[in-house]
């Protein structure tokens, strides 16, 4: 019942926000700043974009198991400021010493509202409600038998307004997301399902911004569209025996943002012993649907 009230409240809040919707632009831009779609950190903008595929290989977890995943995610604008996302993945789980298991992971979806987009300050932010649905994947590979609701906020800030003496730092941008998991079951198969606090950051240095906003240093393709970045994401348990336990990864890498597509590649490094050991990696192909299909599925369903 509590979740029904919560869901209804979130829906009402989203509806109220839509009433005050303001004009917005497509893509992850705020003024002169272009924010790429990052692999690990939730984007602070609604968009018409498709990640297909995201291929990842995790570090070994503390039990020696390792996952290989192939995921897809679609983000679609309903109005210029309201968007939904949906995604799922296929997973190959290789337990330490045991035979491998394959199957689909849980289906996830979200509804996001573009809270603000401040061009002069290169700032952008959204609020959203995301859900991971129970019984939509194979439990043997880790898909849950319960649904988790996750209200979230995400922000982005470019540093193009730094003083002239620090102009070489203007290509830096930071995005961040904060969210809390509310599982709809307190335990599954004898294991607790805690509330979790999730927080992540992406620190980016845009060579494209350096070239067109600060100083043309003569970079040629493909380097003039590269964005070196470091992403990090953490999850801290809040209760049910997991209070204070933190898992997380740091992911240094590079995104190349082209005209219609971007390609990202990152290493995956665990930051706590509870997360795992060794390293993994992830690569992603990401399509800008608003640029590929500007007159059809790349536009908001309602409004422009």
């Amino acid at each position, binding site marked *: 019942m509590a979740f029904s009230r919560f869901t209804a409240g979130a829906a009402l809040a989203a509806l109220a926000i839509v009433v005050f919707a303001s004009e917005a632009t497509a893509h992850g831009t705020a*003024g002169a700043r272009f924010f790429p779609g990052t692999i690990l950190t939730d984007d602070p903008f609604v968009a018409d974009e498709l990640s297909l595929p995201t291929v990842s290989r995790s570090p070994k977890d503390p039990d020696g198991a390792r996952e290989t995943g192939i995921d897809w995610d679609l983000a679609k604008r309903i109005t210029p400021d309201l968007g939904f996302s949906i995604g799922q993945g296929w997973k190959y789980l290789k337990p330490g010493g045991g035979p491998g298991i394959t199957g689909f992971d849980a289906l996830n979806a979200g509804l996001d509202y573009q809270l603000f987009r401040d061009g002069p300050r290169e700032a952008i932010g959204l609020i959203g409600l995301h859900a991971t649905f129970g019984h939509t994947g194979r439990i043997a590979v880790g898909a849950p038998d319960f649904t988790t609701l996750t209200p979230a906020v995400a922000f982005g800030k470019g540093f193009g307004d730094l003083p002239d003496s620090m102009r070489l730092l203007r290509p830096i941008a930071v995005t961040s997301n904060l969210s809390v998991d509310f599982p709809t079951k307190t335990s599954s198969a004898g294991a607790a399902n805690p509330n979790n606090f999730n927080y992540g950051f992406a620190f980016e240095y845009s060579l494209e911004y350096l070239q*067109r*906003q*600060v*100083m*043309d240093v003569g970079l040629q393709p493909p380097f003039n569209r590269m964005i070196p970045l470091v992403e990090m994401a953490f999850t801290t348990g809040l209760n049910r025996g997991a209070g204070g336990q933190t898992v997380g990864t740091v992911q240094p890498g590079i995104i190349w943002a082209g*005209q219609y597509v971007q390609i990202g590649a990152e290493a995956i490094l665990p930051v706590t012993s509870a997360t795992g050991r060794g390293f993994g990696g992830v690569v992603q*192909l990401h399509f800008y649907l608003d*640029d*590929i299909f500007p007159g059809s599925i790349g536009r908001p369903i309602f409004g422009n």
Partner: protein
Amino acid sequence: MRWLVFGLLIALTPGAASGHAFLDHAVPAVGATVAASPPTLQLVFSEPIEPRFSGVELASAAGGPVATGTAALDPRNPAALVLPLPTLMPGRYRVNWHVVSADTHRTEGSYEFSVGR
């Protein structure tokens, strides 16, 4: 897999779509110092642009506007704008631009260059 192949074909097919227009390069170059006042500014973008909804303004380092001609599409390049300039005194200048690409996406930006320093 079909989606992947379809998406790749669309993304890699020339002329199949039109994206956001970002500044590719400029003359004088972004952040450059030139010995003498240039007769024009040329801004070359990554995509063809719609000149009716695009513009370029010049400001001094102090922020005051500098009177210029009107930015127009380069007749030899539908992705370039040319801004006629008066004779500029030595100093630093800021170029503020905004363009709308052929698919109606709006982008904007700014950069500085210096004359005679």
